[in-house]
């Protein structure tokens, strides 16, 4: 596990290093070392590189890292909680809801001066949260014990409904359709330190809360009746964990747009490598998901440079075949 953690951190730095301007690992180390101690960076390193590293590359990579970590955590939780290896942070419709919220803002060109540029993420987050609350409320009404298949089914139905509304809204988007599309595909372009701050706070908060519930999450992955009998307060835990997972995905979607596959793939890879116990799955999903997204973001900005492709497309392009390979391997084992 320690080795994997080191590799992840290394990958993070590699993904910072690569780009139109190459910054070597040792230069990065030097810049970090001096900046953290509050000293001026030695003039042997071009000033332009220092600026690129500190105010473009580093915040961007860290934003991607924490977003990837948060998404993977949320995916790991949803898979265990719903006993469904195909569940993800998006199963409850948070992304559809957030996209609809953002689409509404983009299409109507609505603005609230007090919120400024936070209006888009804020409305996305709010709409995502409302969607999830609708899903949970409807599911709880149909089925008091919130059984997994009910939650998944209602989540799917509501997502599809909200997606249809999104299609409807985007057909009125006209010349804003491109902006809308870019938003739904996700990007880390122009991410600054305050983005990193919000994403980091959400991801670390989620990690801590989830680690405290890791044991009950393990128990719940075997089914609700058993979890009750073993002594887990399933209903309360389910609502708490669904909310934390939604918060994690919601923050990511609202700041970066919909980025798929990280949340689906990272927990599976981790379970393959380290076993299913959530004490290990949660922190390792966080690390592996984070560095995977940072790496994907590097690919997205360099592969067709100077043009940037949406990171959501990159994760899906790498993630989808990867996922199939892992699943086929699993099948063969059986």
């Amino acid at each position, binding site marked *: 596990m320690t080795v994997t953690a080191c590799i992840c951190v290394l990958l993070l730095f590699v993904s910072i290093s690569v780009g139109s301007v190459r910054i070597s690992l040792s230069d990065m180390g030097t810049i970090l070392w001096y900046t953290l101690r509050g000293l001026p960076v030695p003039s042997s390193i071009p000033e332009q590189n220092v600026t690129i590293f500190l105010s473009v590359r580093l915040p961007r990579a860290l934003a991607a890292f924490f977003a990837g970590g948060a998404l993977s955590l949320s995916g790991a939780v949803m898979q265990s909680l719903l006993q469904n290896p195909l569940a993800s942070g998006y199963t409850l419709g948070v992304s559809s809801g957030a996209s609809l919220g953002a689409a509404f803002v983009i299409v109507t060109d609505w603005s609230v001066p007090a919120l400024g540029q936070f209006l888009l993420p804020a409305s996305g987050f709010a709409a995502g949260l409302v969607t999830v609350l609708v899903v949970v409320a409807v599911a709880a009404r149909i089925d008091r014990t919130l059984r997994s298949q009910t939650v998944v089914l209602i989540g799917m139905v509501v997502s599809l409904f909200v997606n249809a509304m999104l299609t409807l809204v985007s057909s009125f988007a006209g010349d804003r359709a491109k902006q809308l599309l870019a938003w739904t595909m996700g990007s880390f372009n122009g991410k600054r330190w305050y983005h990193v701050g919000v994403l980091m706070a959400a991801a670390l908060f989620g990690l801590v809360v989830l680690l405290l519930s890791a044991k009950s999450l393990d128990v719940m992955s075997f089914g609700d*009746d058993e979890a009750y*009998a*073993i*002594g*887990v307060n399933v209903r309360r835990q389910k609502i708490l964990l669904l909310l934390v997972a939604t918060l994690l995905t919601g923050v990511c979607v609202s700041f970066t747009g919909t980025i798929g596959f990280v949340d689906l793939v990272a927990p599976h890879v981790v379970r393959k490598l380290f*076993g299913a116990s959530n004490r290990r799955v949660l922190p390792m999903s966080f690390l592996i998901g984070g560095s995977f997204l940072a790496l994907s973001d590097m690919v997205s900005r360099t592969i067709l440079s100077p043009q940037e492709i949406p990171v959501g497309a990159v994760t899906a392009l790498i993630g989808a075949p990867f996922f199939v390979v892992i699943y086929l391997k699993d099948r063969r084992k059986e």
Partner: protein
Amino acid sequence: MREAIRIEHLSSDYGKDMKILKDVSFTVGEGNSTAILGANGCGKTTLFRCLTGLLPFTGKVEIFGKDIRQLKRDEIARRIALLPQTSGVYFSYTVKECVELGRFVRGVRTSHDREVIDRAMELCGLSDLAQHPVDALSGGQLQRVFLARTIAQEAPVILLDEPTNHLDLRYQNELMEYLKEWEKGQTCLPDGSTCRNTLIGIYHDIGLAAQVSRDVVLMKDGRVLSAGKKEQVLSRERLTDAFDFDVTKALRERQEVLESCLSHS
């Protein structure tokens, strides 16, 4: 003899897809293995859900003299455990991790905890499989893992919800052997008193139920039709009434066909 479970006028009608229980009353004596029999949908599993605190109900349920509604989740789990039907596993926990989850409420750190876990695995013949991933096990082995987990919970009452479903006859017998072995033991209650282990099982196989239980509760349409010693409860008329079908005749016919096949070979 103490009562392990006392159920008085229990009714439950929550949820449209849930089966309804109407005024169910019976008691289970400490150490008296009891079978609950009845047609599909007569409310057996719903009854178990009430006993583990999953479903709300009216009436009264006492476990070793304590009203279940006065007990918190973890306090119920210290008294009643549940062995479910063979279910799928979605994630590859190791056998040991899986057994340890049964001690969610009690913990796994002290030497007593480790001893209980080791003993449960040994009793179920799993000591050699401790580090095996559960998703690579056969159905019979998997059900033994779940049994070990249920035993590791250290509750004096174990509810069995069709535990031998999906198991072939050899594994059915094997599983019931492990259960009988457990039943001979005693368990300490949270208040320090010891009590004899007690099994309450839902079975579809009436022969198996008769084989492993002392008492039988016969249910129909959410009510108790008859309860008491198996010799008193199990009669042709009562079974026919409970299942709306001549069960004994069907069982006999099956037996006859099988025997005529065996005698030809």
